């Protein structure tokens, strides 16, 4: 439904390096790309310090980034119209895999998250982070510009079922991110404030019920958040050690490779979920402000892309993705700062790990696709 790809200079594109470069750059949103590359570079710098004892991880992350950026490039070239067609099948596949995990998934560390496909193991809950906003954006796109209350109810159902499956695995962090991604679509589609207020009140009323459904370790994490000293060796250890790392970093940090908390191995998960503690210790408040600035710039650029998108589908998808990205960053930083519970959300583009990197790069690719195709039919 949106005009087809418009690359000009088809005839000469393979002949000069410059044309080739343009061909590669063409679908990419340059402001977005440059901010992203800066954040990735900062991330590699931090990861180098955090994994100084295990250099293989650094190389693996380089590969993760390469895979992520390639995926982003491929997705950026796909017009949103095509994406629209894949929304429903994608969602159905994701949901089926989630059900399969619940029935026949592999248990790792007490949680049933993985599906063994023989060749490789996959974590279908991760896929839902993208499939969910795609699906809901498609749904509201179909319903037109004035969705009714019933449409919102259907959307909520589409959201709650997979989220509940993920919650049951149990994987609280991912369930919250999927719920967030879906909720953002619903919110941006124009759910009335009154309904949201009512739901919030109901939610508060249901809190004791939710509490009774949480796993013991999840409850403990919430309780320990209020008083980390309760369990200095266990769940509180992460929070205590990461706040010490952050606090001791001071204004300008201890310097790259010189964080004692990081290098004396006081920070657990220092290359994954708690890499921001290493960053804060070595680069200080100045570093944090720089990184926060970069994230804000990234978010701002994505918001501009989303709000200037031509179709309702693109708008909702873009808006949801950017808000999910912001959620990642805020939740992870809040966790390291000791103001949010330890829920296992990585710091976007910085934490070590291929799955999160690819998921986030897919999100960036989708936004770039929206960006690349917005002017074409804007009039």
């Amino acid at each position, binding site marked *: 439904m949106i005009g087809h790809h418009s690359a000009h200079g088809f005839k000469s594109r393979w002949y000069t390096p410059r044309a080739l470069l343009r061909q590669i750059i063409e679908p990419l949103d340059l402001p977005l790309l440059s901010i992203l590359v800066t954040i990735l570079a900062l991330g590699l710098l931090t990861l180098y310090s955090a994994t100084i004892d295990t250099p293989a991880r650094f190389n693996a992350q380089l590969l993760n980034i390469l895979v992520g950026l390639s995926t982003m490039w491929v997705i950026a070239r796909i017009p949103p119209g095509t994406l629209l067609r894949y929304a429903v099948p994608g969602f159905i596949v994701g949901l089926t895999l989630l059900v399969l995990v619940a029935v026949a998934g592999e248990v790792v560390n007490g949680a049933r998250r993985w599906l063994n496909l023989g060749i490789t193991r996959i974590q279908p809950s991760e896929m839902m982070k993208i499939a969910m906003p795609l699906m809901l954006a498609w749904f509201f796109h179909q319903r037109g510009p004035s969705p009714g209350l019933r449409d919102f109810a259907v959307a909520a159902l589409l959201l709650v079922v997979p989220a509940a499956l993920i919650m049951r695995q149990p994987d609280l962090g991912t369930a919250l991110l999927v719920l967030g991604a879906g909720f953002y679509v619903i919110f941006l589609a124009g759910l009335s404030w009154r309904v949201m207020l009512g739901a919030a009140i109901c939610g508060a009323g249901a809190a004791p019920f939710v509490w009774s459904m949480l796993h013991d370790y999840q409850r403990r994490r919430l309780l320990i958040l209020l008083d980390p000293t309760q369990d*200095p060796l266990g769940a509180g250890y992460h929070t205590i050690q990461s706040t010490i790392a952050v606090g001791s970093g*001071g204004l300008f940090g201890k310097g790259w490779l010189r964080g004692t908390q990081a290098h*004396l191995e006081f920070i657990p998960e220092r290359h994954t979920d708690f890499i921001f503690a290493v960053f804060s210790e070595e680069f200080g408040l100045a570093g944090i402000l720089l990184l926060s600035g970069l994230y804000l710039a990234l978010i701002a650029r994505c918001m501009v892309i989303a709000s200037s998108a031509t179709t309702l589908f693109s708008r909702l998808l873009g808006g949801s993705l950017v808000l999910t990205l912001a959620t990642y960053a805020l939740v992870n930083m809040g966790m390291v700062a000791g103001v949010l519970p330890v829920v296992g959300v990585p710091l976007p583009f910085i934490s070590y790990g291929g799955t999160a990197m690819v998921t986030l790069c897919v999100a960036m690719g989708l936004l770039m696709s929206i960006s690349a195709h917005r002017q074409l039919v804007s009039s």
Partner: protein
Amino acid sequence: MTQWVTPEQNRTRFQVRLGFAGLVVIAGFCTLAVRFVFLQVIEHEYYMTRAEDNRIAVVPVAPTRGLILDRNGVVLARNYSAYTLEINAATVRDLPATIDQLSRIITIDARDRNRFRRLLDETRGAGTVPIRTRLSDEEVARFAAQRFRFPGVEIKARLFREYPQRTLAAHVVGYIGRISERDLQRLDEEDLAAGYRGTDYIGKTGLESTYERELHGTPGSAEVEIDAGGHPLRTLRSNSPVPGNNIELTLDTRLQDVAERAFGSFRGALVAIEPSSGGVLAFVSRPAFDPNLFVEGIDPQNWESLNNNVDRPLTNRALAGVYPPGSTVKPFIALAALQSGRRTLEYTIADPGYFTLPGVTHRWRDWKEGGHGMVNLHHSITQSCDTYYYGIGNDMGIDALHGMLSQFGFGDKSGLDLDGERTGLLPSQAWKMQKLKQKWFAGDTIPVAIGQGYFTATPMQLAVATATLANNGVVYQPHLVRYVQDSRSGERRAVATDPLRRITLDPRWLDAVKQAMVDVTRPGGTAAVAGRDAAYSFAGKSGTAQVIAIRQGERYDARRIGERYRDHALFVAFAPAENPRIAMGILVENGGSGSGTAAPIARLVLDYYLLGKVPASMPELQPAAAEE
């Protein structure tokens, strides 16, 4: 919500909402910025000192594992302290070079290196891993003088588990071993992982495993000051761990020793139970192994020789060995026949030496060619007449037999406090239909009545059934542990010994069967030789089970093949018959005959337990020619 909105209005609403969300995001970042200013500017000094102090590490302190004692306080498992040389692989740059340099000060042989490499893989480099254990004082002193050359290497005092009785009751005690990936996963699932911080070992088999929760204890924690290299300098504060509880067994080590030696070089199993409580007095599975080999991780040669041994020393034959019970089930079948009214004490058959079913050509033969002549119930037990029982089986039918035998515990786990128990098989019509998808034939019942056919049982089940008979039908839960001693209060918690259930048995029938069992060991009975001049009334029943094929024998050994085809010998016994203090089930693999090899073992055990007679030298058991 319901009024019509144009696409343009919708777009505007979207932008307003996204703008609102953007403000929330900005507010979020601002809140975080405030928090970071608070941490990094206002509280910076405080956290700086905490980071400096973070030379103060909170380390878990592992609890001392509880002891395992026999009923007289003889130690079966204990701990001793020794120094180990440990390496923190994450902080050592060149591991092979460091180990080479270390080996110049302290002996490190190839076996130590292999084990270290394996432990390193298992722990994936987290924490310190021992390269040498049990350092001598001299070795400790030599390393201390050169410690500065070895950052990341340290001497630690650790507690080691030791089984001073070595192979004695090895299958009961079991052993501990390094916590494996699988153990960790299980602990995580049971939410017990917190209790294992700082602990490297966990019970793997035997009581060490089933009583893991009692034996383990609760870890403490200590605040330890460490230098930049990660070496501990001094302990500032500590919160003591709670040691594990001791467990006290019903087992009598000396009786166990007599019973084990009584087997000589035979393979087999023996379980002796105190009928009035269900407490296990002796629990033998021969051959056994030395659990000490497993504590620090068994080396490949020893593992090879244990695991690939034709004699299967690691198999707990008493609990997991499934054998046809043979004629030892006759007293129970006799009780079933009397109780059901199918037989009276006077009922007599003329035994031609075989049994036939109408319309079936097959002859079920008695072990005695030509038969036993006129046989009543009493003779059927003392002479072990097969034909008499073929008739009972046919008259009662499989399900009636199943009903009585299952009450004695056949076909089901006894529930002993050890893992790995097998159920054996007490067949029934329903079982055959379900498992083999076949109808039960009348002919299937005939061999079951003499403990053959589909019927199999474990030595444990034989002991429990015999104890129940000795106890006039009162069933107790068999158990190995009688007290758990709280490590803090010293209080001894008794393991409950209430009867599980009572089997309704007429005292007249009980007396008759018991009397016949006493006569088994008297002149005229099958085990008269083993019972000669016993100073107490010795009730028993012999049995012999055919070995159809070599079980578990993957290796072909021509010299022993004949022996391994020999029948299994069985014996059940209790004494004194009028007031039984001990009941047992005995199995001797390829022993030939129950009365020839298994009954003399029972006699030795009873003589020791009832009279205190310690056999000076164990007589060589002779596999007699097959009789029953």
